[in-house]
């Protein structure tokens, strides 16, 4: 330690105290700073801690090194090595209690004055203090003092010549006779006691490392090396020692002391301090001069001397506790991986070296990580708004709310999804209309609608395309209204079909939008209703809607103003109204209102203001286009919009593409964007009659979704999904997975046995339900040999379970009731794959409720425990 640079030391037994020493000793106390403001006189060390100066000791000038007394009592006793070689015991701000009183102020003086380089207390025999000194001719450089030698002067007088020149008054406090003198004709740069034995001292001498054994001071083990500075023993591995020279750290194994077992990569600048972490095995911190980085070496595997030539694995890290250069650092003795660093200008910083964190996600949106010696679990907060929720959470919640499973009223699925995503809403309405129309066409006479069915699935894009060929269908119609005389509407069978898909009109050919308007009014969607009314050229109705909206419960009064503006409509080209509307409409916030005025002020035949108003639902824009664009324009518009939707993966576009390959493309980009395989699976299942389901991608989504449900332990949901799937897509029905074959002839007995009606092979098909034959099928239908017996009731399989609770056993008539299902499960065959014992499922279940071992005597198979998953409860029931 050079005088100018501060060093830092933690109190060995007070976890909240440390000493900074440069020209004086300053004792600090660390507090945790709960509040953000600082108390007077305290220094901020980190976000959580502050330091308060407790006391300063400037009694000892020319400090070269400091060592803290290792025992608890007396506290705050420090040994200071001075430039003249004297070692002084001093204390910091403590009341001088009886024990330390005798010690404080004691001086240990070597024969010749030279710099004291290092000090080391013996950790066990704490009266022993080793001091390492510079070379002075043939004098000794390592002196071991006994601080308890109170009457040293007297003993010295008795045994040796008094060389003491100090005043007699201090005589009682000055010790000149060391306990041991070692290292003759040498210099000592660093010292440390070996925890292996309290009489072993490791010293970094000039050009060699030496181990002195105090039991036999004449001998020493030494090895020549340059790395003699800062010797320090790994507190967790007592044979491992680190020392350094210039920029190089050498790691030694004392059992094989000839050469370093390891040298760490050389640093460009000379090292100033090397220290093992006291709380973690094999963590070495090093500091170089003029650097703001502390390098850490995690040495889990230094080579051992016993014939192991593996290369060492060292994880090197560097941490930057502060921006300034670091003068010194000190590990906290007990607090995990914590250190305080000090800069040359005495600013300090409390710093914790974080362990490298390893982390893993659980399937249910929680994150686990390990930091230091703790494991943490972090879960997504339930309060987060739905938009910010991750798709994983969303899908989980949706799965729980039976999303996608409402096949009666398909549009309701968007409510199950939480009714917050406009795209999903649009998607499910589209599917609803498609299915609705499909059913309708099926009901109708086949000749009339002919091949419209597939067309419906193909989306508006194909519908429009098909209308292109049949030009005769086109009928120009002047509007009935007196005002919009110049607006041309187009009508054709296909276009009205498209309008139906858009939801504007109901089935049939009547073009009445009134029901749709009413439903919009009910939902309070006034602007949209008004716009739709207007696009149907019913300006009076539009105004009426707006008025209604303004006067409704929490209506917007501005709607009245809009209505007023509407009523002033004139079709004169240069009127003030027109001018004002076309400029002011851009300031309207609501896209529908905006579109309304765009429509009214547009030149005939160009409706870009409506068509490219992106905030208007695709559905309405398409319907509008179908009404007012001619074939060529319409086709172009639809084409363009479809591509846009496909590009963006916007689910509203399903309206255009339908459940076709185009639709799958669109869905693919939606899945790419969101990862929402749930919606993709359910949506594509609806298109089952067409061949979209055969698309590899669709199959892949479905597979992924099923895996997801499994991973969430939503096994019941997965089963529901499978049922739903097989309803819509009969080809996906899995084959029977288990067959029960006769022991004798090997044929499956399933075709006659009620016990295993696999995969919906109907009971009635085999004349089972309620038929008297049921109880008699106890033999193999192939060879007439009896079926095996149940291990518990010892009756041949195929017989109904005798102990059904309630009255169901009395008569088979009740089988037709709800009990039947339960009873049938009890009848099922079940067996252990391991020991091959089994019987009626009901019997087995009740047996294993109380037992772990197989019911067959002398069989110790723990059948139920073999299936670890079987003991788990599906997650959805846990949550419910």
């Amino acid at each position: 330690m050079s005088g100018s640079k501060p060093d830092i030391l933690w109190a060995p037994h007070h976890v909240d105290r440390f000493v900074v020493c440069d020209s004086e000793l300053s004792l600090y106390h660390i507090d945790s700073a709960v509040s953000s403001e600082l108390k007077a006189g305290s220094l901020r060390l980190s976000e959580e801690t502050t330091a308060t100066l407790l006391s300063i000791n400037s009694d000892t000038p020319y400090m070269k090194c400091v060592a803290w007394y290792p025992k608890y009592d007396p506290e705050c006793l420090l040994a200071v090595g001075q430039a003249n070689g004297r070692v002084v015991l001093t204390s910091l701000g403590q009341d001088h209690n009886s024990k330390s009183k005798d010690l404080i102020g004691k001086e240990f003086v070597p024969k010749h004055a030279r710099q004291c380089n290092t000090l080391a207390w013996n950790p066990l025999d704490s009266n022993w203090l080793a001091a390492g000194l510079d070379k002075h001719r043939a004098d000794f450089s390592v002196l071991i003092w006994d601080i308890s030698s109170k009457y040293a002067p007297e003993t010295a007088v008795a045994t040796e010549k008094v060389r003491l020149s100090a005043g007699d008054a201090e005589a009682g406090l000055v010790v000149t006779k060391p306990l041991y003198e070692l290292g003759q004709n040498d210099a000592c740069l660093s010292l440390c006691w070996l925890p292996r034995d309290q009489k072993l001292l490791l010293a970094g001498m000039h050009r060699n490392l030496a181990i002195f054994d105090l039991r036999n001071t004449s001998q020493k083990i030494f090895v020549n090396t340059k790395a003699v500075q800062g010797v320090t023993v790994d507190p967790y591995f007592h044979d491992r020692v680190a020392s350094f020279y210039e920029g190089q750290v050498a790691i030694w194994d004392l059992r094989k002391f000839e050469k370093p077992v390891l040298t760490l990569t050389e640093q460009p600048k000379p090292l100033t301090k090397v220290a093992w972490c006291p709380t973690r095995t094999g963590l070495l911190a090093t500091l170089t001069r003029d650097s703001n980085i502390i390098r850490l070496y995690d040495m889990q595997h230094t080579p051992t001397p016993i014939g192991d030539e593996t290369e060492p694995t060292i994880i090197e890290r560097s941490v930057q506790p502060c921006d300034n250069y670091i003068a010194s650092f000190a590990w906290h003795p007990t607090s995990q991986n914590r250190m305080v660093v000090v800069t040359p200008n005495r600013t300090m910083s409390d710093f914790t070296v974080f362990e490298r964190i390893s982390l893993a996600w659980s399937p249910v949106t929680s994150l686990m990580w390990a930091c230091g010696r703790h494991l943490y679990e972090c879960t997504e907060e339930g309060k987060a708004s739905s938009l910010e929720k991750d798709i994983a959470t969303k899908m989980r919640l949706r799965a729980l709310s039976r999303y996608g499973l409402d096949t009666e009223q398909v549009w309701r699925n968007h409510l199950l999804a939480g009714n917050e995503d406009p795209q999903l809403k649009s998607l499910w309405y589209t599917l609803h209309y498609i299915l609705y129309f499909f059913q309708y066409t099926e009901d109708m006479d086949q000749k009339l609608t002919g091949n419209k069915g597939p067309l419906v699935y193909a989306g508006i894009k194909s519908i429009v395309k098909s209308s292109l060929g049949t030009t005769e269908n086109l009928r120009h119609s002047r509007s009935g209204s007196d005002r919009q005389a110049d607006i041309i509407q187009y009508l054709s069978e296909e276009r009205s079909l498209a309008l139906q898909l858009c939801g504007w009109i109901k089935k049939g050919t009547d073009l009445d939008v009134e029901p749709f308007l009413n439903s919009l009014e009910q939902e309070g969607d006034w602007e949209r209703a008004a716009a739709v009314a207007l696009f149907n050229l019913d300006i009076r109705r539009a105004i009426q809607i707006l008025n209604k909206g303004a006067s409704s419960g929490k209506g917007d009064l501005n709607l009245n103003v809009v209505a007023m503006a509407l009523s002033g409509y004139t079709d004169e080209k240069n009127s003030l109204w027109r001018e004002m509307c076309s400029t002011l409409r851009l300031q309207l916030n609501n896209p529908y209102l905006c579109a309304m005025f765009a429509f009214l002020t547009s030149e005939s035949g160009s409706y870009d203001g409506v068509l490219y108003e992106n905030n208007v639902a695709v559905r309405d824009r398409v319907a509008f286009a179908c009404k007012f664009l001619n074939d060529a324009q319409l086709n172009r518009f639809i084409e363009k919009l479809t591509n846009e939707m496909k590009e963006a993966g916007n689910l509203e576009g399903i309206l255009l593409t339908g459940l076709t390959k185009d639709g799958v493309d669109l869905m693919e980009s939606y899945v790419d964007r969101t990862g929402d395989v749930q919606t993709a699976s359910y949506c594509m299942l609806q298109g089952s009659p067409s061949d979209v389901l055969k698309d590899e991608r669709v199959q892949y989504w479905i597979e992924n979704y099923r895996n997801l449900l499994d991973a969430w332990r939503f096994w019941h949901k997965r089963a529901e999904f499978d049922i739903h799937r097989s309803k819509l897509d009969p080809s996906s029905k899995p084959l029977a997975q288990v067959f029960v074959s006769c022991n004798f002839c090997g044929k499956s007995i399933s075709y006659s046995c009620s016990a295993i009606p696999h995969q919906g092979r109907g009971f009635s098909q085999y004349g089972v339900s309620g038929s008297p034959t049921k109880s008699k099928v106890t033999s193999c239908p192939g060879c007439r040999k009896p079926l095996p017996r149940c291990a518990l009731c010892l009756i041949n399989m195929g017989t109904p379970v005798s102990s059904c609770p309630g009255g169901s056993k009395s008569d088979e008539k009740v089988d037709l009731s709800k009990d039947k299902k339960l009873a049938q499960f009890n009848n099922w065959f079940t067996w252990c794959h391991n020991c091959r014992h089994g019987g009626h499922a009901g019997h087995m279940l009740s047996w294993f409720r109380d037992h772990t071992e197989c019911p067959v005597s002398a069989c110790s198979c723990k059948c139920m425990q073999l299936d670890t998953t079987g003991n788990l409860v599906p997650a959805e029931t846990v949550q419910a």
Partner: protein
Amino acid sequence: MATCSSDQSVKVWDKSENGDWHCTASWKTHSGSVWRVTWAHPEFGQVLASCSFDRTAAVWEEIVGESNDKLRGQSHWVKRTTLVDSRTSVTDVKFAPKHMGLMLATCSADGVVRIYEAPDVMNLSQWSLQHEISCKLSCSCISWNPSSSRAHSPMIAVGSDDNSPNILAKVQIYEYNENTRKYAKAEALMTVTDPVHDIAFAPNLGRSFHILAVATKDVRIFTLKPLRKELTSSGGLTKFEIHIVAQFDNHNSQVWRVSWNITGTVLASSGDDGCVRLWKANYMDNWKCTGILKGNGSPVNGSSQQGIFNASLGSANTSLQNSLNGSSASRKQS
């Protein structure tokens, strides 16, 4: 959940009904620091694999032992096999996605990736070495592409922590070729030249492209879009269009681990700054940080990001002998 640590042991934790974690097994697995532990798909039973500095990887299976109900707290794990082919420290071990069967990939510090297969899933003591890929660089981490789509052939990404300043790509991607029945290098991420500590493919979840997160001196997220097969020569390797979609140096230090959530939409990373950060893409495919947590679970002060995630101390009384090298969640998922 399984954890592994430098004290040569692996611990298994089970979550009880009320959400507490209990250590149900703890045993010494290796004679060296255990780098990583990983679960096999539950379809194959309760199977773990661990790899260690002691140059081996091991496969463990939980068995229902002689324990009666009183001792059910501790489950019993037996070593099924030890894979001893590596001559250096085995740095990572990963089970292949389940559609490939019971396969296991290991990588070691001498730069060799080995792929093992258990031909008989009922007999975990037999593993045959199927492939050996030499990466020429010391490997630190591997990741299987989890995609089970038939359109994507098996793929494995290897990261290297070689810290020599050469310009070799530190992330290499190998793909299985049906015709040659070998893994061949498909791509190398030339932009990653710093040591890579962890690498993770996102769960594919039906996407047409793959997402790969790389932990090096910063967090990087790559997308790999397979070009259509027709364009590439038939039977050859798939060509990829590789984009780097995000690169974050917010950790301000080396990034240690990355992990994807189940949908591949949230990435968690941990760095030497002692923080865990969460990354998420918005609709425009812009990735940004959605949460920062300090290693001890407290939210970082003064972070402008509002944390969606709320940390709760999992088990404060867990005193582990040593630092944890790896953890692997998702036990018993189906």
